[in-house]
């Protein structure tokens, strides 16, 4: 008996010893990152898969109240309406296209980048993963840059050191309610610049497989740097990086608007515009968004007033833009740019998730940013050279002779000095080119451009140059994590 007793004890001891290993089994088919390929896949998630267009476009001067007046096209969207009125957007944080959703998407991207950086740091040979590190740093810098631009005061060298920023997150979060600090805009810019400078030389397009356009490829990284330095007002660097993004054959990186694109049918153009094979797209990301299907019929958007101001008249080059504005009446004016990729829950379902491909960084932006930087550096000739590159692809019946933009032509057209004229020309091209893409708002922020919004009931909403409403309110739950809301 004593013998069998000891057998039992032995048996129990054995099971005790091995059970720790027994319990190490993962509960389901989750992924464990073991290869550089998997690390690259993790970094595919390091980009915000949300769109800022709906609220930035609605806040910008590209939007007007085009109340349907019984045409049945009066499609009211909360985010659209509240943004147009510069109210705090009250939408479910899960509602795609809203500021809160974009906030979360950026931090989700940052989390993926930080997770990747942690894996690289803990790997046996971090040097072998330097290209991944480069992408992670760029992605982290980009998402923070977008957040600080939208949710904090615009960078101003005189106040940046005291303006509250947004939390710059560098390590994966492991607790439920972690406390964060906003620090300052200057601090956030420092951190972005640090990541950018460290990451930029490490970028290697080889790790992106079949779709470098969906990752920080070398050109995209340079275009982002150019945008960052433009905000930081370091114009020499804008020129340097924009030139890296564009290369020597500038028009290779511009959309063929007045040739290929303008000849396409509606749906073809819609699809072509955001394809990775289309020239000009430097960085694309898919975003959960209903923007593509709703922007023609949204109540606040492109109508006759904005159309006449921006698109339907001759621009500084003396020509018309090649952009085809569709829509039977002003209520539904639109330039087809977004092909909706509707991912149904299953083949039979009515419901699903709409995805739009959003061009985050483009050749045109880099080019026009460089033009602006040249103006700031007093190199007007270089600036107009860039503007001429731009119009060569963007206006109908382009002629290098009749349409040639010169400093004096700008001065005349805008009835101002030649430097200001060239600057205004660059900004106007940007405004027209990026119609429906939300980019105008960033210039409005950066240059403190005032905006006036009219409403159908006769109201006038003025957005002054230092208006608090230029800064989006932080999602209400950030109070939980110790963040002070923005003043409104």
């Amino acid at each position, binding site marked *: 008996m004593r013998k069998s007793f000891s057998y039992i004890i032995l048996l129990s001891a054995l099971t005790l010893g091995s*059970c720790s290993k027994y319990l190490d089994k993962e509960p389901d088919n989750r992924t464990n990152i073991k290869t550089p390929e998997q690390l690259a896949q993790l970094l595919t998630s390091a980009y915000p898969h949300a769109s800022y267009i709906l609220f930035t476009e609605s806040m910008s001067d590209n939007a007007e109240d085009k109340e349907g007046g019984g045409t049945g096209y009066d499609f009211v969207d909360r985010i659209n309406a509240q943004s147009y009125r510069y109210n705090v957007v009250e939408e479910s944080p899960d509602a795609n296209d809203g500021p809160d959703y974009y906030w979360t998407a950026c931090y989700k991207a940052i989390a993926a980048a930080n997770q990747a950086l942690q894996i690289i740091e803990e790997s046996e040979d971090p040097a072998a993963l330097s290209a991944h590190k480069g992408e992670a740093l760029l992605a982290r810098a980009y998402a923070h840059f977008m957040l600080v631009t939208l949710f904090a005061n615009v960078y101003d060298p005189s106040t940046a050191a005291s303006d509250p920023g947004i939390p710059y997150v560098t390590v994966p979060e492991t607790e439920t309610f972690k406390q964060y600090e906003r620090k300052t805009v200057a601090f956030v810019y420092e951190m972005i610049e640090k990541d950018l400078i460290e990451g930029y030389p490490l970028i290697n397009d080889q790790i992106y497989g079949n*779709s470098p356009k969906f990752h920080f490829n070398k050109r995209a990284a340079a275009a982002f740097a150019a945008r960052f330095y433009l905000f930081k007002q370091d114009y020499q660097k804008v020129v340097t990086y924009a030139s890296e993004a564009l290369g020597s054959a500038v028009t290779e990186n511009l959309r063929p608007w007045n040739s290929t694109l303008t000849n396409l049918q509606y749906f073809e153009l819609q699809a072509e515009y955001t394809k990775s094979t289309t020239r000009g797209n430097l960085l694309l990301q898919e975003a959960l968004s209903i923007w593509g299907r709703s922007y023609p019929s949204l109540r606040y958007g492109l109508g006759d007033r904005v159309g006449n101001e921006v698109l339907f008249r001759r621009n500084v080059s003396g020509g018309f833009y090649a952009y085809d504005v569709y829509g039977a009446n002003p209520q539904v004016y639109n330039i087809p740019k977004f092909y909706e990729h509707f991912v149904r829950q299953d083949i039979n379902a009515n419901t699903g998730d709409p995805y739009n491909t959003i061009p985050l960084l483009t050749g045109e932006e880099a080019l026009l940013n460089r033009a602006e930087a040249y103006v700031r550096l007093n190199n007007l000739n270089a600036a107009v050279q860039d503007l001429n590159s731009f119009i060569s692809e963007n206006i109908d019946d382009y002629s290098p002779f009749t349409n040639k933009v010169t400093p004096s032509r700008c001065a005349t057209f805008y009835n101002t000095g030649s430097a200001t004229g060239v600057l205004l020309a660059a900004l106007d091209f940007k405004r027209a080119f990026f119609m429906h893409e939300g980019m105008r708002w960033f210039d409005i922020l950066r240059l403190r451009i005032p905006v006036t919004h009219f409403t159908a009931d006769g109201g006038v909403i003025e957005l002054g140059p230092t208006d608090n409403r230029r800064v989006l309110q932080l999602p209400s739950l950030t109070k939980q994590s110790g963040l002070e809301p923005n003043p409104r």
Partner: protein
Amino acid sequence: MYRHMLRLAILLLPIILTFLSLKTSAAGGSRKTDGHFKLLADTTIRGRVTDSAGNAIAGVSVLLKKGELGTTTDANGYFTLYNVPARATLVISSIGYQAREVRLAAGQTFISLSLTSDSGTLTDVIITGFQRIDKSKFTGAAVKLDMDRIKTPGQTDISRMLEGRAAGVAIQNVSGTFGSAPKVRIRGATSITGDNKPLWVIDGVVLEDIVNISNDQLSSGDPNTMLGSAVAGLNPNDIETFDILKDAAATALYGARAMNGVIVITTKRGKSGVTSINYTANLGVQLKPTYKEYDIMNSADQISIYGELERKGYLDYNSIANRANAGIYGKMADLLRGLDPQSNEFLLLNTPEARREFLMQYAGVNTDWFDILFRNALTQEHSLSFSHGSDKAQSYFSTSFYNDQGWSIADKVRRYTINLRNTYNLTDKFTAGFKVQGSVRQQQAPGTISRVTNPVSGSYDRDFDINPFSYALNTSRVLTAYEPDGSYSYFRRNFTNFNIIDEIKNNYIKLNLMDLSLTGDLQYKFKPWLTYNFIGAIRYVKTTKEHQITENSNQANAFRAAPNSTIAEANKFLYRDPDDPEAPPIVVLPYGGFYNRDEDDLKNYTIRNTLNINKTLLKVHEVRGLIGQEIKYTDRQNANNTGFGYQYENGGVPFVDYRIVKQFVENSLQYYGMGNEYERFVGYFANVGYTYNKKYTFDGTLRRDGSNRLGRSEKARWLNSWTVAGRWNMEQENFISQINPISYLTLRASYGLNANYGNATNSLAVLRTKLTNRPYLNDRQLAIDIEHLENSKLTWEKKYEANVGVDLGLFQNRLTFSVDAYSRKSLDLISLIRTAGIGGESIKAANYADLKSHGIELSVGGTPYSTANWKWETNLTFSYNENEITRAENFPLVFDLVVPEGGAKVGYPVRGLFSIPFRGLNEVGIPTFEDDKGGVSNNVFLQSDKTDFLKYEGPVDPIIVGGFTNTFGYKDFSVQFHISYQAGNKIRLKPSYKTEYSDLDALPNDFKNRWTLPGDEKLTIIPSIADRYYAFDLNASQSYPYNYYNYSNVMVADGSFVRLKSVTLQYTLPSRIIAGTPIKSLSANLVGTNLLMIYADPLLHGQDPEFFNAGGIAQPINKQVTLALRVGF
């Protein structure tokens, strides 16, 4: 090959062993008779065993103390033992009674003796699955139910038989479909997001669910719910008892799985010395539902509504011609456009008279969809069991066959079960047992896909729903099923022909299930007081769901419906090639249908070792104890496959257009897939019990559990749980025993902690690979997503529970009372909480919620009246339970709270039902509501997280549940009425209102009182039929007031009901008639189940208060009459 053989041998082993045992025991028996060396004259002893009240006890074991002879008593308490040595000692024992030893006097041939019940108080033992404890020493709250007393022939799922039978157990039949589980709650909910269902344990082994079905999925009608009931494969005739363990002390040994209570099933086993054969046949008829029970318009009224729809511009025949779904107006539109090939004239002249005449022929149709889709279906269940045993080996074998022809024309069930249980007493000390249990199920159900939620408009969508019950309830009685010539009549659905009968024949799910388990147990008695026990179990379940959609089905034809470009553009089942955006959508399923397969498999192992002690010292100090260890291993696998273009009637050859595959891939849909879940569980436990002089009992349990779901950190993955409990048998005290009427009076108290793992497994960050949602395949990449961030503080969901109970027996136990009161506190519950999102996850699952609940349970039972011929037995159960979420950082949205399943909000029950406050109809008859800003409008933002404006209606789960059973016996006849009741909960009414109606909808009679003219808003609350202009405007502004109306306070009914659950008429053939025949017992029962709803809220208009009409495969429980015959040999 070798491995296969081995597996086969293992499976066959118990069967071979059974036959061996039968053979050896038979041989052994003969050898004994022949070769026994007769020292003294052997005699035949006869005898009778009764209880203290003089009633015969059947099945009492009568054994020779030295030797191998033994038998058991028959139904009248008699036994006969042959070849008994003179002056031998007999050991007479039976479960629940104190064993007696009787020394035969010289020459004695007849003995008559009575057994006193085991403890002198309650005649029972509680089987916890770990221990068998005399009820008189059991400190926890538990209920024991004998299957014989609750068996309801015609009920095939044993969990449903528990309804109203035990205090503290609530059974809600959210769906009556075979295989789907009722909502079972022991003492209410303990968790907010995790499981609330009890743990089922069969003969000591936890019965794992085949698929994990969440609380809300139970009522979804999804095809998976057919696998929801853990016990659907059990033959009710194999079950001996249920022990329902309710409080912390009773469930203590289940530690970290015990939070929701435990139901322990004990199955039958062979008895030594008894050979018996039992046959049971249940023949049932399920009664068709009728329109009388429901509030649905007849066809004449319906036609007049269509008249209004036509006036309001909905049924304009030009637009209806291209609409996806249409009824008689669609048919009329087709005729108005169609030409007669011979006469070249229009099939129907476009004149008001001709149109009117066409429509009027449908006014009197009054199609009885219930009659067409349902039948008074027969069910039969045959069960045969053999039980046999000697002192050395006992065996029980049973097999059963259940066949349900199908209440509706869309379903059918067959179930076969087999059960084999052998016990071998190898030596005095060593016992081994084997059990093989198997079941095979073949079931057919209407073809369905999982439902999807549309949180914006607030509706559940399920395409191609052909659930016969919801079809009958929701389809206009104007539509016909057959043309006058007897062929099917077709109306339009998904742009193509649809007839429900035809569709059911061509679109169905076939479920095949095989469940096999092998359990082995060993017992070794080191000393009389020290025993070692081992249990090992293997279970393997394989299920296949084949959704067969033939080429003739509407669901397949919808993929081909493109008669013109307008329809092609509108038909979402066509394919639009992203590489060719200007091209019209094209058909990518030119031939065939679908063959979609889903497989869910379960592999489960359990091993447990325990060491038991049980010793009485100095006659008054009884010490019990147990230590042990167990390991559980569960693997679940789901595999699925979509088969395109399978041609059912063309040789079974799949015709696959590559573009349908391309469409799947582009849509990020997987046309096949496989997923796994792994559970690993380890537990160590110890229990000590001490009873002093039968009066005072103290009990304590400690358990330590570890699970792989809680991650790798040693701290999080392990949990220690404990309980302490005590019991005072007051009748043992002189001051009570002097009070004559009191047979027993006990006081119990317990306190302890147990747990469950919650619905989160992110103790480390959870990364998940997915496909990027990019439209073009050349851009498609793999992405790894952080599904959940690391939660370094993830821990188990825990529950503290205090319980106090009093049991009282009066007048020799003719009347018994049992009252329990408890208070529970659930801590560290997983709650979905919204965070600032800075870490990258905006909604996190974390242990951030607490819940408290309390309740009282009462059961009163007894035999108030009993004479030689007359007998009245009664049993009343009553349970009250209320719970409240005391802490939760969750932010429920309006939509989460107004759905029929209810939602979780702090300060309210786990599932509370809320309503949008209705504020009357506006000047055009459109409903208005209070909205989240305090204003009144017809636009309520369902995604708002401001929910304070909602009206709280009440809990979705009943506060009070119970049952009342009365059995009246006269001689050999008895009749039993079993009533179940519940109260205190609220139900959302069937959503009948929509922004737009079509000529297919069936509307309730309330519509007759709807708003029709301005000013009516002062008279009625039934909304108008919105005209097209308003409807368009509402849709454009994303406002769905008719859906909000369905979620408003006027669409709520009280959930209380009293139901006559069953009536049983029984006749048992008296033993004097069958004496002399091989038949030992014969009885016949006539049972009616669910015959009558005695009380329910009249607002329900026949809607079953338990049932969630979710479509899919869901069906309410039906009325049924069953004849049951039982014969024993």
